[in-house]
């Protein structure tokens, strides 16, 4: 359901514009396929918090089949990947999973997701490129 209400980015240009145009907010983009189970769950979560975090983050969805431009650059091979950008800069986050570039696992709790976005936003405001996630997800990592 969440994927219906959240804005989709249909071309590479749209993705670029979304990242470029936002001046003082974090841009959160979910790359994946709407019909996949993990994507559905993540979309539901993102839709649930979209209204709450609208002061410091915008959330977009992007279908990796429709827009394959970033697949190799960002290594988008997982069913669901969430990436963060701030002022045209890719924000990294140390989740303890080994991959600091993106959030490619499922999060069970809305508040956890809000906390992650908040932490990244704080770091981004201070000019940091890498922040440490408030929780360590090393044990929860999917195989």
């Amino acid at each position, binding site marked *: 359901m969440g994927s219906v209400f959240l804005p989709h980015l249909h071309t590479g240009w749209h993705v670029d514009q979304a990242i470029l145009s936002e001046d003082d907010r974090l841009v959160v983009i979910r790359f994946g396929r709407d019909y996949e189970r993990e994507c559905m769950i993540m979309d539901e979560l993102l839709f649930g918090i979209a*209204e*709450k*975090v*609208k*002061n*410091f983050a915008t959330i977009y969805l992007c279908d990796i089949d429709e827009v394959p431009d970033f697949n190799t650059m960002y290594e988008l091979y997982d069913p669901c990947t969430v990436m963060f950008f701030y002022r045209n800069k890719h924000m990294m986050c140390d989740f303890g999973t080994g991959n600091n570039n993106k959030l490619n696992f499922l999060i069970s709790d809305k508040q956890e997701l*809000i906390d992650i976005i*908040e932490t990244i*936003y*704080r770091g981004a*405001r201070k000019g940091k490129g890498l922040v440490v996630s408030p929780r360590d997800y090393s044990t929860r990592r999917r195989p």
Partner: protein
Amino acid sequence: MDELEKELLDDFASSSDEESQHDGEKNEFTSDHQVTLPESINKADSGVDSLESRIEKIIKQNAHITVEERLRQISLESVEDITELSKIKPLIEELKGRLDDYSREENRDLLDLLSTADQQFKSKDNSFIFLMNELTQVIQQEISLTHSFIKFHYKVVFPELESLVLNPIDYCRVVLIAKNDLNNIKAHEEVLRVFLSNEKVLVIIMSASQHAKSQFNLSDRDLVFILRACDLLLDINVVLERITNLMTSKLGDLAPNVSSIVGPVVTSQLIIATGSLKNLSSTPSCNIPALGVRDMSSSESTRKETRQTGYLYHSELIRNLPRDVIKQALRIVSGKIVLAARIDLAKSLPTGEIGQKYSREIENKIDKLLAPPERQEDKALPAPIEQKSKKRGGRRFRKMKERFQMSELGKAQNRLEFGKAEETMTNSFGEEVGIGMSRGSGGRLTAKMNSNTMPGMSKAMKNRLQNSAKITSNPLSEDFESIILNGSDNNVKSSNQNEGVLENTKWLGGMSKRKNEEPTVAIKKTKL
């Protein structure tokens, strides 16, 4: 009218229990609210005259008598046949006929015209309604009187019945069914179920079967009297019902505003329960939902949320509401009913327009009660922007922090010289304390003591002390004291000679003692 309304009409007499409590005050109202018939109408119809004048006479007689008083007048033991005492009994048949006539009448429009055309002379119809309105009180008195008679005499057969069935009408029906043999009451179970709840029927049958062994058999004569009283009570109840029906149909004239709020049926029920429109208008609104509650002691009612399942509860307005708003709706409606009743009493708005306005208000309020609570939007979280605090410590804060810091001495004491055993000393509490590097050779302190932790004095305190020092150094006061003290010294000296004066000067001696101490204090103060 559907079944429920019919059932409610049956229940009118149930309110007579409560009525009897209020009778005293009610009669005060009725005494100045007598309806007198216009002479012309009385004369025009001589056949009618007798009935109406007789009713009036009864009402007048009863105006100042409560049920309790009447019970006192006629001791129940001595009375064998209550039916002979009944004032209404001779009128019942005639009344029934009249009521039927009135309710059958189609040409109400003409009567309405008449009544509006000439306010002075109320139409025959109207005056009869007013008369009936008054009569309901008498009827209810009569019902409770008869009920207490039956209770008194039937007690020997089935003592528990009166606490099991509080409603006088139901009580009579049970008595009529059970009669003298409680053993066979089970056979009448189906009949009992018609007017009592299953639960009640079960309880009655159980307790009846228990009492059957020790039952007292009434003589046929006594039983006949009891049954006759029961018949009378039911008859009177029928008249009451008829009056209610009549009033319901003619309430447009009597209480247009109230009936436009809750409808004619409930209006007539309320008016009859309170006794008259005047009484209804002077009833507190919180009492209105309780009117017509069938059985206050029933366990059924306590299980529900609202206990006040009276006429208003069963009205069209309230009945279909969900449970959680019923209580509030009852309050809203009953408040408006009393207001409307007052307007009706004053006859300021005979068209009932204010009642319609009220009912619209009530509808709006109930709609608001029924509306689901508005969904609250998710409140956006504030952006987590960290701002540096604008507050700086300042001198005072720094000093305060310094006061809690560890002193140089303390730090030195915690340090140990390498390769040497630490010297110890016993402190004032008798504990052994390591000296560390705090003392050099010969026990001399190596570090400075922390001066910040010393007790200090605030500026204001210093000023105050200086001022007080000035006052003590005031030459005038000193002179005054010295004069007294010198005098006392003289006295002391003289007391050596004269023993009798000693006691007199004792306190002065004390004062001189204090004076001796004081100079040292003064010196200290001036130093500070």
